[in-house]
Every structure is written in C-alpha cells, then in structure tokens.
C-alpha cells in the first residue's frame, strides 16, 4: 500500500467527503439541531396564525422556505468551524490538491447532512400546512435545487468569517441578501404549483442560480479561506 500511486484530487475529495460524513455521524446533536428548528418553526405557525386551512394553505410555501433558509443558516458554521479550530483546515490548505475541489467536497458533505434532510422533510411539513398534493413536486424540486445554493453561498460567508470571533452576526449580514433570490424563486415555484400555474420559470431560475453557485462559490470560498488563514 505504501508504494501506490499518489492520490489525485478526486480521491482526496472522496476521502474528505467520507471523513466529514463520519464526523457528522459521530456528533449527531450538532446536525440534528437545525433540523429540529426547521420542524419546530413550521409546526408553531398554525398555533400562531390560527388553524384555518385556507390561510395556512396560502402561507405554506413561504413558511416552509423561510424555515428551511433559517435552518440552513444555523448549520453553516459547521462547514469550516471545527476544522479551523483544530488546525485541519491548515493541513487542507497546504495539501497539494486544489483547495477549491476540497471546499466543494466539504460543501457536498455538509449539504448531504443538512440540506438533503430539509428536502425530505419539506413535503411532510407542507402537508401539515394543507399544501395541496399538486404543489409537492414543485416544493421538493425547488428545495433540491435551492438548498445546495444555500450551502455554497454560505460556504463563502463562513470562509470569510471563520477567523473572526463571534462572526455569527457578520455571517448573517453577508449571506442573507444573497439568499433572497433563492427564497423568492423557491417559494414562488411552490405557490405557483399550488395555484395550478406554470412552475418552469422559477425552477429554471433556481437551476441557473445553482449552476452559477457551483462554478463560482468553490474558488471564491477557497480564496476566502486562504485570507482567513493568513
């Protein structure tokens, strides 16, 4: 084994995804907190605004998306914080692999444990708010396209603020404005579908946002990490 070929960027990225998933699995509480928050916020809404089905149905897409967005923000720090604190990030930065590839691997692992559960929980919570069945597809597809964008944009923000003590407020200020388009198009896709309208427009825009974030966010976050470490 010691004489094998040196691992390339893809093997390194795969190892990083595997390691991060192991780490998330071994500190489950940290991962479950944002999901619990997501569920609690959505289930509290009927208690606050009253149980009328018509009101809740109209609000459902927006409520689910706002809660998903805030839950995603809660989990952001987890992308880089612990690696920064214990020095593992320095080791990644001085590894011969391209840092942007490693960043993408970390974001992927983070999305798998924080974004994907939101996608899966979305329709359940939507149903609890009387969201009609015909809107479920648009809600799930929207979350599937939108939550990776939230993780990717968030990675830039975390990379910039990871060196700052208590950078949480700064992180929200940096990231929230960039989250707004995702919220608007995601919620409008679901409410269009609920009203029986065409959903291809908002979903296409979400897809475009995802393509943009996938190509631009990893190098931007890698550059931001180098600044934070320097």
């Amino acid at each position: 084994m010691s004489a094998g070929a040196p691992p390339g960027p893809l093997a390194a990225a795969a190892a990083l995804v595997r390691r991060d998933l192991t780490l998330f699995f071994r500190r489950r509480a940290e991962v479950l907190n944002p999901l619990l928050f997501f569920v609690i916020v959505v289930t509290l809404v009927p208690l606050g605004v009253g149980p009328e089905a018509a009101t809740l149905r109209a609000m459902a897409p927006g409520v689910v998306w706002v809660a998903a967005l805030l839950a995603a923000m809660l989990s952001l720090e987890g992308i880089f914080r612990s690696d920064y604190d214990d020095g593992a990030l320095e080791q990644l930065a001085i590894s011969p692999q391209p840092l942007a590839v490693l960043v993408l691997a970390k974001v992927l692992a983070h999305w798998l444990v924080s974004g994907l559960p939101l996608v899966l929980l979305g329709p359940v919570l939507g149903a609890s708010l009387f969201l009609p069945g015909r809107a479920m597809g648009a809600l799930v597809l929207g979350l599937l396209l939108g939550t990776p964008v939230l993780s990717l944009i968030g990675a830039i923000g975390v990379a910039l603020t990871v060196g700052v003590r208590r950078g949480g407020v700064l992180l929200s200020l940096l990231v929230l404005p960039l989250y707004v388009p995702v919220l608007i198009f995601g919620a409008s896709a679901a409410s269009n579908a609920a009203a029986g309208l065409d959903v291809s427009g908002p979903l296409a825009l979400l897809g475009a946002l995802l393509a943009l974030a996938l190509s631009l966010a990893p190098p931007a976050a890698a550059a931001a990490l180098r600044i934070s470490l320097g």
Partner: protein
Amino acid sequence: MPPPARGDVLCFATRPAGPAAGPQRTDPTVDEASEPAPPRRLEARGLECVRNDRVLFRDLDAAVGPGYVLQVEGPNGSGKTSLLRILCGLSLPGAGEVRWNGQPLERVRAEYCESLAYVGHRHGVKGELTPIENLRFQRAVAGGASGVSPGEALTRLGLAGFEDVPCRTLSEGQRRRVALARLLTAARPLWILDEPLTALDRTGVAVVEDLICTHARQGGMVLITTHQPIRLEGSALVRLRLGA
C-alpha cells in the same frame, strides 16, 4: 518597543546529504536559469512580518538545504510561528519572498506542498476519529509519495494499542504523537515543526529527537521551534534567533 530583529544566521546547503547526494552549490545568488536541476532547498530573502503594528522581524534571510536542521529561537511573541507560517505558504510576508529550489513559492505551490510536512500548534487531529482514521485521511489528502503504513507509524510513535480509540479520549501528548506520526506516513523532504515537543513526555521527546536526526541524516530538511532543550546530536544544527 525593541528594535526589529534581523536574521543573523544564513545557512547554506553545502553539506553533502548522505551517500547519494552529489556536489552542491555554495553560492546562493546564482539564478535558476544557470542551474538545470537545483538541489532541494528552501530560502527566505528579506522577509518582513508586521503584526498589530509591531514589526516582528525585518530583512530576515534564512536558508535550509538537505541534511540541515534549522532551529528558530526567540521569546514568546517574537514571531517564530509567524515565520514558520510564512515559510509554509499559509500567510504572506509583509515584504521579501520565499523560494523553493530557487523558484518563488507562488509559482511552484503544488510541487512545494508535495514536499512539505507541517505540524503546527493546532495539529489538525480530529477528536472524533481514531488515530488510524486520522492518518489514513491525511494520507489520502496529502498526495505525493507515501511513507510507512499508518499502523507502523503509530507503533514507532509509541501508540501501539491506541489505534482504534477516538483521539478525543487520548491525552494531549498522545494527540501530539498522532500528529507527528504524519511525518512518517508521508515521505516529505521538508519538515516544518512548530513546538513539536509540547505536552510530550521524556520518551516522546527522545522519539522526536531521533526522528529529526534520522530525517536529517537521510538528506531531509527540518525547521523547528521549541522552548524545550532538544538534543540533535549528529545533525547539522543551525540556530536562527528572533527578537534579539
């Protein structure tokens, strides 16, 4: 405020590195064009580091070549860690440049990273993973030539029997040993060690001294900071004093 320290030691790669090494240049100013295959060496020229409006060092020159151990000395806050981080390429100097094999670091970054092993203050050992998992992961990401297997590296560092225990439950000194085992699993010519002896017991210190001496004898290069006395008998030790 004390006057900024000047690098007062310059060491050159003049010593033949083991039996395989050929004759080496002693003139550090020859540019890379006249030398088709320059020997491995790390050079710093005219480095300056400013932290919080304090000049830690200025006009600092240093070089280390095969077979040499460069020990950076100085009181707390004199810029030892800052210097090592600059030499690793983790942070940028205020002025001056770092060269690897005669080339500026930015131009040969990937090649340099494949030659470098860095163990810093924060040693990058994940508490949730076992020592074996830590080393396997580090080896997968590190690329470059690999050395001994993770299991053997841990045995050499005196951690036999702790391979499958989460690092969180190990003592600080044991975690430091896990971090240092990285030096063995990846075959890197240049070691940069920031306070590697912190929290180590006497046998641990002896193991590290032995690792460093063996590495230097085999033509490796070591940059080290430490406040503890370290015996590096038989290796070409050069001292660089900061904050004079």
